[in-house]
């Protein structure tokens, strides 16, 4: 009997490669986070390049690309980080629809910029839909391929492809990922816990991405410890000045345990806990975080709700231009 579905086979998994789509909303109140691509615009662009629906499942590869053998013909696009794709060892352009034939191997050169590459395959990666999504939530062993990052020998089904797209179709450079070293944040939540001087210095300082930066959250270091406003700890909060009565954590919220190293929660966020938060990175800048490398310097910049909504509209406009270009 012929193989039932078109398959890819993971020859080498890279550092951590997971199946991701645009996520699993609706279960955050039970501790199951959104998950999905950390850089959503790049996954959407990759999908549109190969003729998929923009929310189809693809692969997210961090820092080091995987090696993938195709067992059927497919159209493939690689977007996001600058990590040059190779087909049978020959370098091919990123942000471009590539034809890969059965038996060929997709691999990657070294990372040049960014952190996460997105690999779309025509028809999308077909893993079971769990709670409405194919995204991997590894901490909860949920979704994706067996709830985990891919391993050598894993076989994943893909397809069937939609209408064929022109090979070589490419997204204009202006519409590709933009690297911005500034993360705009809306102050609030528990920012009254720190002194005004500490809050100002937090914004003035250069922070560097710490090695502990993953899909749950990005940790930053290099700035001064925050000074807290003295208080009598509220019942149940705990005695550390950075403790609060365990609350929900917004996506993008910036917690600072012990006042020392800020952590920005991302797509696989822990949904709540007992650390105060100084504010929240606006939704428009979340994709940027997913492309930050360890040791990269960044600044946090204060904005207000009007600024956040203007950035949101600009982000939506950018996405609309990507859709138009690949329609």
């Amino acid at each position, binding site marked *: 009997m012929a193989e039932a579905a078109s398959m890819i086979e993971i020859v080498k998994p890279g550092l951590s490669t997971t199946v991701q789509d645009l996520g699993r909303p609706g279960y955050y109140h039970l501790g199951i986070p959104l998950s999905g691509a950390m850089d959503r615009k790049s996954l959407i662009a990759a999908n549109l390049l190969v003729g998929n629906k923009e929310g189809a499942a693809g692969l997210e590869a961090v820092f080091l690309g995987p090696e993938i053998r195709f067992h059927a013909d497919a159209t493939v696009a690689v977007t996001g980080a600058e990590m040059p794709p190779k087909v049978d060892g020959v370098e091919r352009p990123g942000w471009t629809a590539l034809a890969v034939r059965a038996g060929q191997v997709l691999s990657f050169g070294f990372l040049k910029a960014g952190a996460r590459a997105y690999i779309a395959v025509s028809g999308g990666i077909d893993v079971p839909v769990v709670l409405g999504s194919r995204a991997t939530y590894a901490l909860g062993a949920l979704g994706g391929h067996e709830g985990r990052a891919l391993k050598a020998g894993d076989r994943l089904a893909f397809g069937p492809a939609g209408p064929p797209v022109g090979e070589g179709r490419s997204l204009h450079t202006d519409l590709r990922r933009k690297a911005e070293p500034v993360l705009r944040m809306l102050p609030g939540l528990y920012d009254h816990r720190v002194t005004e001087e500490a809050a100002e210095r937090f914004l003035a300082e250069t922070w560097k991405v710490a090695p502990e930066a993953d899909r749950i959250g990005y940790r930053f270091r290099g700035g001064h410890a925050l000074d807290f406003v003295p208080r009598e700890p509220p019942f149940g909060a705990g005695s550390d000045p950075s403790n609060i009565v365990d609350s*929900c954590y917004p996506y993008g919220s910036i917690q600072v345990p012990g006042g020392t190293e800020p952590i920005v929660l991302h797509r696989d966020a822990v949904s709540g806990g007992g650390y105060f938060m100084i504010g929240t990175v606006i939704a428009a800048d979340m994709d940027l975080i997913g492309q930050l490398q360890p040791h990269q310097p960044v600044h946090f910049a204060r904005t207000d709700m009007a600024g956040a909504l203007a950035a949101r509209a600009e982000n939506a406009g950018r996405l609309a231009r990507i859709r138009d270009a690949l329609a």
Partner: protein
Amino acid sequence: MRYTFGGDEHLFVEVDEAMSLEAFFRSLSITNAVRDSRIRGVTEICPANASFQIKFDPDVIAPGDLLKELKSLEGAGAGGAELKTRIIEMPVFYDDPWTRETLMRFRERHQDPEATDLEYTARINGYPDVTSLIAAHSGSPWFVSMVGFVAGLPFLTQMVERDKQIQAPKYLRPRTDTPKLTVGHGGCFGAIYSVRGAGGYQMFGITPMPIYDPTQTISYLREFMILFRPGDIVKFRPVGRDAYDAAVEEVEAGRFTPLIREVDFSLSAFQADPTGTNAALLEELHG
């Protein structure tokens, strides 16, 4: 009530800075009212211990309009709290070898490296020994006042007067490992770790009863992979090694049936007579 926006997609509402069952019930009542009012653009409704969070799409509802809607529902939390809920019994093997091995591995991160987590917590709460702490921990029921951190993890509030609630600081630095199904304690909250992973709570024991099953093969988690909902009541029952092993075997064989009873709970009745209310709850559990 303190309202604050978490970026452009979350409205965060602190009911009270301090933990209390009153604050939890207000949070639960208001979030239920938000759910019932079906406000356009609201995408996630997350009740927490003494606060809650609404995730919304600002392209559908302006942040200012959502704030107005929420403020109009404030009253929903003011009335007497009556709840149709469940009481669930959880066997616990206190001072088990697995959490003990783990706490020994992370002793340098603890306030008192010379004692176990149980010994330390007993001492700082004025209990003469670990046995009396376990008796207090398992003697009265607990409210699930929040579900989260990771998938299906319940935060538990002890249903006793404030001065009788067990309190303990978190580890000085969080552990990188906690056995799955550890029963822990931090601040005034109990917790059951639904998955293996990092954690900072004091570790008291382990339950054989899974509370999260993404494969949905465990009999009582087939319909939904998460056992707990905010408002559930939990009663711990101490068991020894043999009963623990037997329960694990039953879970694996698909024969384990948790003891769960439907109950009515009234906050005002509880406030008037906590001991009597708890005794009645336990009677319904075992009656």
